[in-house]
């Protein structure tokens, strides 16, 4: 199976790899499962205006999973929480030209954004 140029670029030069210290303004999403071969951790630093200031990821998975998570960190930085919640897996899959067997990687990326934002909102409400 051949990978698209965009997947290879994100795999070889992943953006925003890393971890943030846990803090009230940081939301963490951990999605997927080791048994399924994919785990994504996405962290979002969100300011009081609800704007995502920074994003970091770490991913266990295939090249498409790594590329999907790298891509969404680029996409969410500068967006509001509401805008980020609107990112759909189809957009990720189309941008990276993922083949059908890799669509689940883009689904996981969308889940990671939602999970990280939910975690941030829970912290706010607590």
């Amino acid at each position, binding site marked *: 199976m051949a*990978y698209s140029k965009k997947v*290879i670029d994100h*795999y070889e030069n*992943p953006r925003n*790899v890393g*971890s943030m210290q846990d803090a009230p303004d940081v939301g963490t999403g*951990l*999605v*997927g*499962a*080791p*048994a*399924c*071969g*994919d*785990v*994504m*951790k996405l962290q979002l630093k969100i300011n009081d205006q609800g704007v995502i200031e920074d994003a970091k990821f*770490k*991913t*266990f*998975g*295939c*090249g498409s*999973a*790594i590329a999907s998570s790298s891509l969404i960190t680029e996409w969410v930085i500068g967006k509001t929480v509401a805008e980020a919640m609107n990112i759909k897996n189809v957009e990720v899959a189309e941008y990276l030209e993922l083949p059908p*067997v890799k669509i*689940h990687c883009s*689904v*996981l990326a969308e889940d990671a954004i939602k999970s990280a934002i939910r975690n941030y909102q829970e912290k706010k409400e607590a």
Partner: protein
Amino acid sequence: MTKNIYLDYQATTPCDPRVFKAMEPYFEVFYGNAHSRSHPHGWKAEEATERARAQVAASIHADPREIIFTSGATEANNLAIKGVADFYRDQKNHIITLKTEHKCVLESCRSLESRGFDVTYLPVQVDGLVDLKVLEAAITPQTLLVSIMAVNNEIGVIQPLAAIGALCRSHGVLFHTDAAQALGKIPLDVEAMQIDLLSLSGHKMYGPKGIGALYVRRKPRVRLTAQISGGGQERGMRSGTLPVPLCVGMGEAAQIAVEEMPSEVLRLEGLRDLFLEKIMAAIPEVYINGSMTARVPGNLNLSFAYVEGEGMMMGIKNLSVSSGSACTSSSLEPSYVLRALGVDVSLAHTSLRIGLGRFTTKEDVLTAADAIIKSATHLRNMSPLWEMAQAGIDITSIRWAEH
């Protein structure tokens, strides 16, 4: 451009130039049909197939009349299992095999189950080997056939053929072994090992693709029902015109494999140990799948914990290796062989099969080890599971949402 290094010798092997050279005249010059019994073109072709048959027979200590040419090991395994089952179906109806067998053996057994046979799929021990006591306990008066592979294609472990053969003989059960991965790697002797049926493949031993062979014992005679209808070639067991050049290649390949085995085994052991030492010294938490003692030297199957296999393969794109990760197969399930060993499903996703062979050099394994170390280290730094493990979090304690 970086050189691509082939490390997938269990998938297939290149045709040895000596083999190819032996085959060449039989495409253009000696093109006769080996079954044309009444003219020189036919005689010349028949001479070649019979010489090849003798070479194959000699490589496993059999009689040439016991060798049936097939299209490959898949066909040989199908013919052995279904052929024997069909012939003896009025006498016995039970077959025993292993969970780690090749798909063509497992699927042949499945198809017999749908036709009323009972099949026992035995588990293996953590090292991938069959437990002889478990095997003996599974044998019933209804047991017709035991089919256990000689060398596993994923983990390279060598089953105790002689002990299995003796056990089967003492219970009056036929013993078939899929030896596609074994010829030229371990000594094969159908007499000493009391093997009744044995499958071989040309392209797994530096011969051409599209040919294999089935050994069928004559004394005491093993009968089987042909699975292909036709002109009754191959003593009625496998109809179809023999592919003369392929037969010649198979024969030549078998002879070379056996002749060069003693030195080749030592050479590959050296390369394997060099590779493994380099990997183990540089990366923690690398696990070897399958026995390291009962194993052919050309196979390594390693789990690089916390690094997914396909992700790893993308980082070592100049190395042709294979992964037990689900992502590399269409089934979305990780390797059933590793699962049968009791390898944790998460760890099965992180496995790589590295196959060394006749044309692998020291430089190849050193380059490969460097690339793997670099990629594994890079991907671990990117792995949330590695990060959690380093922080002392037990990843099995987390409730993952399996998708």
